């Protein structure tokens, strides 16, 4: 087998094993939380009889191990089950939410990744001069401000005062792509500001590191212009760390945006997960957890593979 294929297969099977452990952790975590699903559904108005009846119906009287393996059996057959709280099909409701999460993450990435890399290159080109300092100052400031605050500030000026974009980013299937993009404009702006600094700084650092090398000096001596040196010689050699940090940020855009979802009322997976955790709806929490874990593991595998492929020494191990 080709060494790269072997590597991918290895990584994938390790990833599956990790997912299995993640599911055990998630199940144990939600089970040891105080209160159970019946108690959470009925809340303050729970009577002992109503609680007992609801527990019976939801199968809460089975031991935890039995419930876990029942669930695992279903998942292996492709059946995520139904939510305990409202009896809806999990695959269906989760599908819509996941699509929305990916939609937002995709457009945020489309804006943020090229912008970050471009700004990183620009910062290297004008290293230690005012463009570099300005770019660093602005991006570092925006990453240091809590994201909900950036959200509120943008909401106040752009939505309430200027009326350019809606403050409620509720999208649904009946909207056209243009309407959807208009709706998510504000969260995309905030997410871009949040992830920009990390990627930009890493690009800058990785390329500067390469710029110290002898072959870059040679390139300069043979008369290439500043940006050409970066584009042809420095950037290809700096790609591995950049891809790594880009993937980390993409993973964040998928799994870590619950605050933004709440602020802009975006129907993504984050809020869906939080709602079900607070109701102890274990099957849904499990399903969300698995998807988040899969996204995280998957993106990391991609990062690994890309950095190996981009490095001839790793591509052809002796």
């Amino acid at each position, binding site marked *: 087998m080709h060494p790269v294929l072997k590597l991918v297969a290895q990584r994938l099977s390790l990833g599956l094993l990790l997912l299995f452990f993640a599911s055990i952790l998630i199940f144990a975590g939600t089970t040891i939380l105080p209160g159970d699903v019946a108690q959470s559904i009925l809340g303050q108005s729970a009577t002992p009889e109503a609680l007992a009846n609801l527990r019976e119906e939801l199968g809460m009287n089975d031991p935890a191990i039995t419930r876990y393996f029942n669930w695992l059996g279903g998942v292996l057959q492709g059946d995520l089950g139904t939510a305990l709280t*409202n009896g809806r099909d999990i695959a269906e409701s989760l599908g819509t939410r996941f699509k929305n999460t990916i939609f937002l993450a995709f457009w945020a990435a489309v804006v943020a990744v090229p912008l970050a890399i471009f700004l990183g290159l620009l910062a290297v080109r004008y290293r230690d001069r005012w463009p570099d300092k300005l770019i660093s100052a602005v991006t570092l400031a925006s990453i240091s401000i809590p994201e909900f605050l950036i959200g509120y500030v943008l*909401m106040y000026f752009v939505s309430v005062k200027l009326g350019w974009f*809606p403050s409620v980013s509720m999208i649904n299937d009946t909207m056209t792509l243009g309407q959807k993009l208009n709706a998510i404009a504000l969260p995309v702006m905030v997410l871009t500001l949040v992830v920009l600094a990390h990627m930009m700084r890493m690009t800058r650092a990785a390329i500067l590191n390469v710029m110290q090398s002898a072959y870059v000096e040679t390139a300069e001596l043979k008369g290439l212009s500043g940006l050409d040196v970066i584009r042809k010689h420095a950037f290809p050699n700096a790609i591995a760390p950049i891809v790594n940090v880009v993937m980390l940020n993409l993973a964040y855009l998928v799994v870590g945006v619950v605050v933004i979802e709440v602020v802009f009322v975006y129907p993504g997976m984050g*809020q869906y997960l939080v709602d079900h955790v607070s109701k102890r709806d274990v099957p849904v929490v499990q399903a969300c957890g698995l998807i988040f874990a899969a996204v995280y593991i998957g993106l990391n595998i991609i990062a690994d593979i890309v950095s190996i492929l981009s490095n001839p020494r790793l591509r052809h191990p002796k």
Partner: protein
Amino acid sequence: MNDQLDFMASRVTMGKMTRREFMGKAAALGVSAVVANSVFATAARAADPVRGGTIKLGSSGGESTNSHDPALTASEVPLSNIRHWGETLVEVDENGALDFRMAESVEASADAKTWTFKIRKGVDFSNGKTMSADDVLKTMQRHSNEDSQSGALGIMRGIENMKVDGDNFVVELGTANADLPYLMADYHLMIQPGGGMDNPAEGVGTGPYTIEFDEPGVRHGYKLNPNYWDADNRGFAEFSEVLVLNDATARTAALQSGQVHLINRVDPKVAGLLDRAPTLSVRSAAGRGHYVFIMHIDTAPFDKNELRLALKYAINRQEMVDKILRGYGSIGNDMPINASYPLFDASIPQRNYDAAKAAEHYKASGHDGSPIILRVSDGAFPGAVDAAALFQQSAQAAGIPLEIKREPNDGYWSEVWNKQPFCASYWGGRPVQDQMYSTAYLSTADWNDTRWKRDDFDAMLLAARGELDEAKRKDIYSKMGQMLRDEGGLILPMFNDFVSGVANNVGGWIDDPNGEMMNNKANIKCWVEA
């Protein structure tokens, strides 16, 4: 000037400004009386319901776990949802009177033990079936039978027998209850076809709307039911939407930018500022809900009434209303009843902050001086942690050491409330005194969260329940209130108002003490002007 005049006209339409005020202010703007008069007339005419359009509510209290099953309804968004498609036998209106919905009238036997509801004829469910007394019976059975998971199970317990008699639905009680019709106004008891036994979350009922789309935790959409039986009074907008906006800032921004017409739970901290915006107004309705600190009177050190009194004197009620509610509320008197209830006795003396008296009672209680642990979380009520800190300060001044233990919001109702001996809590209030006392202060009540178990109190409650003479009833309730006030485990510093944001183009708004958002009926009773 025109903007100003428009704004004033909209206040007239909303019933917030009288003709006299309007003419006076218009004159101040230099508008001639003739012009002012015609503007006033147009604005006042607009108070007739406008049909069509879409009315949108931005509401907190919605989760992706919600369903349309009325038995499981517990938070604000599902409450607004079930009001769209369903109706109960009776409702309680904003003045505390009965509003007959699926029942046309009700009659009690002389001993107040047998109640006969005459069921309204010719009302269809939205699935085309005709609503009958049998559907009513099945609905009540679903909420009271032994498999019931309903939040209404507690109030159904006093019912001994239910039956259908022709077009009547008959309820027989073990002990007399003069307030039984009020119990039937409970929002869980939406009349469903076949009692909703087969598919409780179907969302089919006799209400003014039918479900158009249903995305729990995101939004719920409704379309007008063309066959609605009471179209003169409800169901003005063609479409109605409930958007789940749990974040307070998101709600106010959505209202300000015109994406919704109504929002609930305006944070008292920003209510004053928000009210200044020209396109909307903040409406505050005095309610029966109250923010409380509860002590288990069967657990040391709270088993000593002297200590309970010390703590009751050590809380500064006015300060709490001013700082926690920012004036959107009223002070409490350590009994769960206020002037919003029928038969309230206003002559009971108000307890005020008195550090000297608190210190005196504290000394008399012989408490050893160790810190008294008070458990709080912001999940108990908004601002609970701050309120506890104020309580700690005012108690400190009386020499009573309080220690605040902050608990997580998550699981507060299952792990802390009704379990720990001293904690912060919230009660939503009930339509009548009997229901409030039966829910939380009867010895056998499920939610007796102060462990108040007194035979003499129970006897008075039962006596008042069967008493049809209002003067005598009022007298008994007054005694019960004073007993709780002086001996109970309830420290009740404040009653909160329902603070809502209403856009100026919304007509038909009324302040309803029964619940938030006109008791969750804003969408079905208000209209939007073009």
